[in-house]
């Protein structure tokens, strides 16, 4: 996947500027969305925009898109472990009232 010299390909300034503009628009959008009350949807909208922005930075600015498969595996496994922490942790907090017995 890597070019013969091992360096990332040179990305055009235009691509970078486009990503930059997208990120700024995303920021504006997230502030705008937060100022309206969408009920339970506010958080998913904010997180959706944040994830999109982060993915843009990660893929283009950090060059994961142009990098080796191994780098992609490393990034994905980092996120996977984060999900393990959140998932198994919340697995406790979300089920604490199921038994109807305090502390169980």
């Amino acid at each position: 996947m890597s070019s013969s010299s091992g360096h990332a390909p040179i990305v055009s300034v235009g691509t970078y500027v486009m990503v930059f503009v997208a990120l700024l628009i995303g920021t504006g959008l997230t502030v705008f969305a937060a100022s309206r009350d969408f009920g339970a949807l506010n958080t998913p909208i904010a997180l959706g925009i944040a994830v999109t922005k982060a993915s843009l930075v990660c893929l283009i600015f950090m060059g994961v898109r142009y990098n080796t498969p191994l780098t992609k595996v490393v990034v994905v496994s980092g996120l996977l472990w984060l999900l393990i922490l959140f998932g198994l942790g919340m697995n406790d907090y979300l089920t604490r009232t199921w038994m109807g017995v305090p502390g169980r």
Partner: protein
Amino acid sequence: MSSSFPLFPPSASSVSTEMDLLYLFIIAVCAFFTILVTAMVVYFTIRYKRRHPEDVGEPIHGSIVLELTWTIIPLILSLVMFGWGASLFYRLSRPPSDSMEISVVGKQWMWKIQHPEGVREINELHVPAGRNVRITLGSEDVIHDFAIPAFRVKMDAVPGKFTTLWFNATQIGTYHIYCAQYCGTRHSGMIGQVVVMAPQDYEAWLAGGRSTGTSVQNGERLFTDLSCITCHKADSTGRGPSLLGVYDSTVQLGDGRKIVADDNYLRESIMNSQAKVVQGYQPIMPVFQTQISEENLMQLIAYIKSLKTPAQEKK
């Protein structure tokens, strides 16, 4: 206990026999594998001792059948252990509904015990034999753990919330209570004893104890002293919701969630009153955190639990 090399603690509750059986079952499985593998390793070491410095072993690289065998057999055995253990744990997590309730508060470094009839003890717990006893645990400072090996029960007392354990003592006698979660300097001094008595002896003991009113009575007094009564009026005309029959009912909160009003919800609503406010009411109740002790809190909740709607009374 009389043996000079004791192997088991006294067996004095309705679950201790089953716990011992589970323990022995796992011992049997583990002993089998330990002996099997150790015997194999020792036998091979002797049988295949190197005879000549140039010798090498036979070129054996593996066997899928064997690998599957020793993947699947341990898997099945461990799932059996899980099933049995989970079922026992589940039963130990659900106090029967007919339990008598005793509250226990851990504090560096003592156990403060309060019987529903109002008798209080420190580091000593008297219970009748043959009755289900539900213990509500609280802590005033750090995490403690209320453990009675003879009953095979144990539960952490966590500051900031209530926890529960239950047992049914079967053998009359005196047994250790330990604090099993490290809690500071005199952690190992937080030892008490549980005295199991015949039911009639227990009644006699209760009658002889100095009672300062039952938990419900004490709770009722606090309800007035802390002015709870000025807002939480029985006829729902107050600034706070009526508390008749609130315990174990489903409450609609202001943010749309529904929640069952269990001990920990009542606790939170007293201590951090604005955390979960009932729909239709303003968050105006004062916060009682730091103003009320764990024991008083338990009395107050005992009183709130005793408040029944007329319909419930009839039943």
